[in-house]
């Protein structure tokens, strides 16, 4: 074994372990596009659900439609309140019919212009709205890179009731993988068969290890029901399948993309495709 071999062994031995830290939520801002009465009625419906989800006795602020005229004003309002959680719904200030494949510019901006998690509910006009405001039994955390993402998992744990089931899904995109492996197969010095097999195993092994440490930690908190889903495939198809097969009540996912202002690619696809399930967008 040579220097590279030993370096690889030691680098591989450094593995992310999960550390539980409860997110701090001191206040909530409910953002609506309704008049004050409508906003109050919505608050009455949503508040018990949110308090059950996070914590009681939150400092609550409901923003009605007339309080802001545009996106920057709304972002400013939310910023002034220093909220720990923003609650809003799809297509705020927009028509569902005209924007079926979009979240709308307001939601887009709230997820990207603030560091505050956004709990995105279905549109109140939707027939599914009332049904979604139930204590979740199954919470799904989705990502393509779960290892080391304590913040994402901590939020998943936080919003999952003790008696609930936390599903942790890590899906490696097989198309990207296949493209790289195709190129590897064109390099004569590399033993392609071994490489393909070992890269795949290593890609899946590390998130599985991390999820295992999550399960260990949660067992100590008496939360036994952690279901790992670590696989390779077409991410969106897998997520849709998991959501439908497991009757998921709440999805937790990252939306920030360090390289751009727009929402993280897969997050946007999930947000648009999965319309009838509340999403917690980090």
């Amino acid at each position: 074994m040579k220097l590279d071999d030993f370096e690889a062994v030691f680098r591989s031995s450094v593995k992310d372990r999960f550390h539980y830290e409860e997110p701090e939520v001191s206040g909530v801002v409910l953002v609506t596009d309704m008049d004050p009465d409508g906003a109050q009625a919505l608050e009455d419906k949503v508040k018990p659900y949110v308090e059950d989800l996070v914590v009681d006795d939150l400092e609550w602020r409901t923003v009605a439609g007339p309080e802001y005229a545009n996106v920057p004003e709304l972002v400013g309002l939310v910023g002034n309140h220093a909220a720990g959680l923003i609650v809003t719904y799809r297509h705020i200030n927009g028509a569902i019919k005209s924007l079926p494949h979009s979240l709308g510019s307001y939601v887009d901006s709230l997820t990207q212009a603030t560091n505050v998690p956004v709990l995105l509910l279905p549109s109140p006009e939707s027939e599914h709205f009332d049904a979604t405001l139930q204590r979740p039994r199954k919470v799904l955390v989705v990502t393509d890179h779960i290892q080391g993402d304590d913040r994402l998992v901590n939020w998943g744990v936080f919003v999952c009731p003790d008696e609930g089931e936390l599903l942790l899904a890590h899906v490696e995109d097989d198309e990207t993988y296949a493209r790289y492996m195709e190129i590897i197969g064109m390099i004569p010095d590399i033993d392609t068969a071994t490489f393909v097999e070992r890269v795949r195993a290593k890609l899946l092994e590390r998130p599985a290890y991390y999820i295992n440490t999550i399960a260990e930690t949660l067992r100590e908190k008496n939360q036994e029901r952690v279901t790992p889903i670590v696989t390779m495939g077409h991410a969106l198809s897998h997520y849709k399948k998991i959501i439908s097969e497991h009757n998921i009540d709440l999805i937790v996912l990252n939306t920030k993309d360090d390289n751009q202002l727009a929402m993280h690619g897969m997050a946007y696809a999930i947000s648009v495709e999965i319309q009838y399930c509340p999403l917690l967008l980090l």
Partner: protein
Amino acid sequence: MLSFHATSLANASAGSAGGSHVKFIFLGVLIAMIAALALEEKIHAKKSMITGFFAVIALLLGAMFDILPKGAALTLPGSNHALPVYIPAIEWEVIAIILGSSLFIDVVSRSGIFTWTAIKLTKVSGGDPRKLLIYYSVLTVVFSAVLNNVTAMIIVGSLTAVSLSKLERKDLLLPFLLTEGFMTNIGGLLTLISSVPNIILGSMAGISFIKFFVVAAPYVIVATAATIWLATRLFGIKGLTTDDERAAAKELVASFDENDGIASQSFFTLSWFLLGAFICVIATTEWLPYIRQLGMGYVAMGFAIIALLRYKHEVDKNYAAIDWDLLAFFAYLFVVINVMEHAGVLALIGDGIKQLLALGQIGGGVALLWSSAAASSLTDNVPLAAVMGNILTTAGPHNSDWWFTIFGTNLGGNFTPIGSASTVVAVSIIHRNDLKLNFGTFVIKALPFAIAQLILATGYVILADAIGLI
């Protein structure tokens, strides 16, 4: 015990060396080879290419000046087949030890026992830099003794880079790697098979494995402690002081999974057993019936074959991992040294050495130690050991002279970045991590360590001789 057929062959014909001008021509060839080895990195040539080139030149010159044995060098008993001079010139027992132990160590390395031990110690340290330095230093010494200096440096050096990066203490990487580099040459002194100069000089002197260990071990312990103490002082490596710091560091090293490199638990366990058995059998070879007739090369090759059974369907991968450059380097080097002996060059150098020995038992020995260290700091210590061994064999020195030479050739490597293969590896890890260290800076940083180790060695060998340990 090893025997040097080539040497005796050479001795038999040493009287046939040509005139003094011929000696100086060959001396020039030897100096040119040693200089080329010292400048190996600059001339971008592998060691084996350098010694191979000079072996070809030396043999051709030897034939032209008619200094080589006439006809065949060795005729096999009961056969008409004769071997050319360059075949018995090679000390095959040394080659077998190096080849066998390299293969054996490569196979058991794959079980994860060395990486497991290294990571386990990292976790036990709790991420405290001073404890980490102590543990890694001791680990380097032990690995250098059991494996070889280069492998020890590779294992501990690569772990050091990863663990200090994880601990966000990359500022300590340079002092750690330097200290570990110095430790490899101390650990290389521990047993007869810990370094090639030990194998060559110890074998020529007829020192047994156990005797070597008994004499060298006390020095290794003292020198290890002294080097760690110096490193903490000179490099300012301090322990963690607050509970918060300790808790944070412990948390960071806890992310190491020592079991990650273990592919098979059964082979992992078997490898511990095999390694223990290997050390026991090597240490007791001279007393084991039948085995003692076959020697340590047989033991090393035998254990390599046993370990390779684990990978019997893909041994080509293990063969590919062998450092063929190193083996070819030794083979060609033995050929060059043999020709030099025929040419009378070693006798010429031996005359100079005799003047050192004439300084008296202690004075001569001390001069041998420091001159060997000086020579070894600038060139490879293997040719130095081979040359010195041949000269001392014919000079009939005092027992302690062998030990002065063994300590000098091993420890001299700590003076410069090219002084030993393991310090070369340490510097290469330093450069891989984008740390700046040139030749002069290395020497300035290494000087206090090398001088302290040599002063300790001088005092120790004198003392050991005085109390009859040697």
